[in-house]
């Protein structure tokens, strides 16, 4: 998955709560959305929830980026090992002197 892939979060933010950059794919059916008072929540509270969700989304993306950076490091190390095996296989006859 690349960074531009759909970002799905498991925090239900109710109607109109999805912040930019964190697309909410599933329909909002959370408890607070159904609650009678949900539509009447003041703007500040909703902004706080949206900000919290944005923070979570950012943190998840950041962690994913860190994991991918680690994966790239791992890949280069493994590739170097593979290259070493290839080169060693060309010269092994000189080293091994396997009797037959």
């Amino acid at each position: 998955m690349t960074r531009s892939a759909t970002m799905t979060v498991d925090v239900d933010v109710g109607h109109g709560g999805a912040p930019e950059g964190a697309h909410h794919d599933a329909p909002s059916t959370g408890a607070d959305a159904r609650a009678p008072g949900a539509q009447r929540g003041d703007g500040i509270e909703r902004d706080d929830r949206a900000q919290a969700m944005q923070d979570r989304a950012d943190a998840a993306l950041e962690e994913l980026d860190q994991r991918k950076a680690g994966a790239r490091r791992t890949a280069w190390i493994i590739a170097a090992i593979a290259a070493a095996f290839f080169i060693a296989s060309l010269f092994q006859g000189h080293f091994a002197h396997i009797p037959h």
Partner: protein
Amino acid sequence: MSTTAQAVPYEEHHQSFFERWFMSTNHKDIGTLYLCFSCLMLFVGGSFAMLIRAELFEPGMQLMQPYFFNELTSMHGLVMIFGVIMPSFVGLANWMIPMQIGAPDMALPRLNNLSFWILPFAFILLLSTFFMPGGAPAAGWTMYPPLVLQGGESIAFLIFSIHLLGISSVLGSINIIATVLNMRAPGMDLLKMPMFCWSWLITSFLVIAVMPVLSGAVTMVLFDRFFGTNFFNAAAGGDPVMYQHVFWFFGHPEVYIMILPAFGIISEIVPTFSRKPLFGYKAMVFAIACIAFLSFLVWAHHMFTVGMPLGGEVFFMFATMLIAVPTGVKIFNWVATMWNGSLSFEVPMLWACAFIVLFSIGGFSGVMMALVPADFQYYGTYFIVAHFHYVLVGGALFSILGAVYFWLPKWSGHMYSNFWAKLHFWSSAISVNVLFFPQQFLGFAGMPRRIPDYNVAFADWNMVSSIGGFWFGATQLIFVGVVIHTVFFSKAKATARVWEHTYGLEWDIPSPAPHHSFTVPPVIDDSQLAHGTLTH
């Protein structure tokens, strides 16, 4: 288990056909490509096998020239190993590993795309050799010099395609290692991973270690053929036996590359349909690691008859027999998992049970050949043909088919027809024995492999074997029908968990699996893992 696998179904993920199937970086799409490609190659390699069995149906030359027969046997081996068994396991790994460890995709998706798309070009190169002057390579899949050097110009294509296949395998393995080591969901410790992931992690290290060695060996052959070197030319001080050592240093771990993922699959299926946690999870993990380690120490058992010091023969004999110990651990643990379980024999379980029986038959004949004095009798006969076909067809291929029947509802969102799936199983299970069991008799009687004609004394069992071959080949058409019907026409919807007693993250997401499985890492609940919190 708490997960956050919210669905982005394929229908909502707008991509053109070309974008989806040629440029995809999605692990599921690439897994599907691998599986479709290996299915196609199964029928290509299988058609070679049908021609071989048709020629061997009766003694005497029936259908083809001897050289073409040798081309068929060589290409059958190369296609089946590099085009069927290995890619289909990689396809299964692509589909299942990210879902099983709670990752959104493979760690290196573009590398994943490259790994796959190298394959078709490698096989176009390889199969095009049939149409070249001098024909396709005919020295066996082992490509021993000096015989392979005496073929036509197609050797360059053969070697280049081997290089490409090696690059594809190594890149795929790098991706799997990077994914498993870096992309696991928080809480998914290594010793909590499903067995299939463990088996592929270890297999990937085997691939990294030995595919470059094969590349090195064929590179030296290339230089001997085209650039005037004499690595394997005895007349100029080279050593053809050295090629065998280098080749089999690749070749024996390659056998385990083709069977360790099968162990992982069986370790997923058996607990599900035994309704019990896997018996001895840690022992199973260490047994796989032990088998992988020992596989580096046994290569010369493939070449006892070239002549080697007695000490070497004894070492390789005992090292080979030692592998029976961790392999036995696995067999007994699967049986112990079934023991006192609430067994049900759905289609995947049937394949798993057949795997255990047929792989054991192949394994036991392998132990027989580990014995140096006995091996001198079996070497180069149909006994070894029977042995490795029991391992690779009854073992590897059966596990792949079992895996497809196990996970196909998860992939497609539909259930398949039990009747046709069971017909496919029973017809395969019977015909594979009709095909390969008589070859053990032929081998004991001394029939050599890789010949298009034989003594009339071998006629009856060859005819039986050929009938079994045609039967088995035709049976696989049922499989294609079942898969096509399930994916495109089946009305039976699969639930998320599909089977009654499933554990593991892949069963927590909807069927069909969404385009991206885990965009937010799932929470791991130990009690929901296949081996669970129960200990033995």
